């Protein structure tokens, strides 16, 4: 009897700790209140987490843009968990925020909570990642990068760059994590673009898992299996950086013997581009804060917005990288 009671006490104690912990976590949201006028817009934003440098830059862009636009930001970090995100959105609904925005951790399972927001009359904006809800009226718009376009821009630059080439141009491709949306879409966009010139051929394509170590390991074998590689297309900068090491170790000069095209434009990648090790980068920008705040204001004012909005992104050549590098935020 006594042991059972002790056990029960312990469980109760644990439950209490968990509950208070949960409350504390919920209350832990960052309020960027700048004390604007009467018409102060309140935005509830639920972020995926802080899993990469890209994401950290994304978060700071949103916080800075909210402060600048005098929008009160209630910021929640979901720590890569969908249940945290759903709880945060329900909290925003209860607090009657004006607009809710979030980057969904996963694609599915949002219908119920989005319906609750719709019933409460709170408009929702998706950022960076999409959801697969069949009912498109559940959210106002989706603001994010177009991965297919990033692949296409890389391919188009390459077609232009190799215009004078008469013989076949051998391309090797380092794919991102197998099955992930950026990997699938970038591959697709690139393949579409290079089909314009039949001389351009992808002779080998492997997954480097978006990591430097992966890119390096795969590139080492590419180099040994194929003596004449002309071009490397990497789905992100990190794999490209790993490949640069492999190319150097093989006694070739990256950027000269092998033309390197990548996507992302993170700081180390831009540095490599400025140093002449890369030849071209298509940007995948995390700095969507200002665009998001614009949208929030428009939607709050009752204006119509397009259902799909692309992040403002650009591309960099070596000269452009040298210019842009001192002002890069990530």
């Amino acid at each position, binding site marked *: 009897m006594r042991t059972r009671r002790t056990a029960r006490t312990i469980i109760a104690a644990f439950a209490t700790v968990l509950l208070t912990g949960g409350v504390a976590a919920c209350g832990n949201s960052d309020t960027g209140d700048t004390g604007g006028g009467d018409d102060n817009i309140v935005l509830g934003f639920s972020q995926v987490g802080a899993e990469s440098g890209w994401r950290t830059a994304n978060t700071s862009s949103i916080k800075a843009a909210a402060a600048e636009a005098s929008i009160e930001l209630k910021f929640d970090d979901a720590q890569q968990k969908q249940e945290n995100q759903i709880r945060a959105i329900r909290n925003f609904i209860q607090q009657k925020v004006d607009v809710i925005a979030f980057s969904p951790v996963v694609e599915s399972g949002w219908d119920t909570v989005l319906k609750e927001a719709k019933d409460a009359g709170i408009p929702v904006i998706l950022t960076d990642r999409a959801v697969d809800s069949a009912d498109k009226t559940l959210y106002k718009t989706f603001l994010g990068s177009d991965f297919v376009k990033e692949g296409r821009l890389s391919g188009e630059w390459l077609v232009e760059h190799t215009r004078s080439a008469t013989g076949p141009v051998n391309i090797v491709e380092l794919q991102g994590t*197998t099955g992930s949306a950026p990997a699938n879409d970038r591959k697709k966009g690139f393949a579409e673009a290079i089909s314009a010139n039949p001389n351009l051929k992808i002779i080998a394509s*492997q997954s480097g898992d978006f*990591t*430097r170590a992966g890119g390096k*390991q795969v590139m080492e*074998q590419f180099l*040994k*299996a194929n003596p004449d590689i002309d071009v490397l297309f990497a789905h992100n900068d990190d794999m490209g950086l790993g490949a640069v*090491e492999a190319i150097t170790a093989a006694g070739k000069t990256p950027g000269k013997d092998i033309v390197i095209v990548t996507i992302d434009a993170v700081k180390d990648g831009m540095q490599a581009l400025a140093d002449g090790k890369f030849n071209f980068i298509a940007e995948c920008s995390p700095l969507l804060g200002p665009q998001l705040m614009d949208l929030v204001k428009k939607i709050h004012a009752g204006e119509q917005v397009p259902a799909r909005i692309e992040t403002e992104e650009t591309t960099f050549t070596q000269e452009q990288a040298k210019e842009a590098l001192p002002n890069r935020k990530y």
Partner: protein
Amino acid sequence: MIAVNTVYRPGFLSIEVNDGHLYGTPIDILRLSAPLILVALGMTLVIATGGIDLSVGSLCAISGAIACLHISTATDRNSPSTVLTALALAFGAALVLGAWNGLLVAVIGIQPIIATLILMVAGRGLAQLITEGQIITINSAPYRAIGLGHFLTLPLAIFIALAAALLVAAFTRRTALGLIVESVGGNAEASRLAGIRSGRVVFLVYVLSAACAAVAGFMITANVSSADGNAAGLWIELDAILAVVIGGTSLAGGRFSLGGTVLGALIIQTLTTTVYAMNISPQTSLLFKAVVVIAVCLIQSPAFRAKFRRRRSDRTPGPAAPQRKKEQVPA
């Protein structure tokens, strides 16, 4: 597997001299398998005591992150003293974390899989905390040498791994330690009654495992001159367990083979490199690996071999389950 590779691409085995050291796919395999060999060595002893250590991947990330962070904040990144301090700091941290694992398992008596799962999950977060979610890039020649340096024209990393293997082998096979580890794995209670301090032995193998993981972490991060808290050493614990099992060590504990483990690690790396070299599509490469691993395990299974043998020679039935000879440690 090497034969298949050579048939597919005759250049597979070719080794040439490039820039004063040997260069070729077999060399790549040796260099890239060095971290796995190290982690698998520690894992072998842990498994021999009937335990398991899931936290080694996270430990690789933590040790790599600490070392790279220290070097990146230092004024002179190329001075040997900076690198040595960085290594010492990271190694010390890994020992503390290994001791934490050992404490949970040996003293508090939590099941190894749960105890080390804690550090596997939390450690990944810790590594990201150290790197602040960013990838730390460093430019330090002495640190690079751990992953990419050469000694006698061969990668330095493989010498480090082999030295560790010989050291562990010497300690376990030349002294009674190996016997004690096996006896604890066989029956911890009986060993205790026989006068062996089981707890202390178990504690020690987790610290050793962490130490091996730390050095592996140095190699992984030095190989690409950057520390990635998210990706460094990711899933290496599973590869290490696989290497141990392929090497003939029983997961139930009580028996281990260091030579087998080294061989197992080499097989796994050869497999990965083969996938890249033969350009098997990434969608099917996992299946390809699974088939090869199943084949290797089947070849090793005494029951399977016995059946195969019996079918081949109906008249002379082979022994029911031939006792597998314990592999000798390479000395």
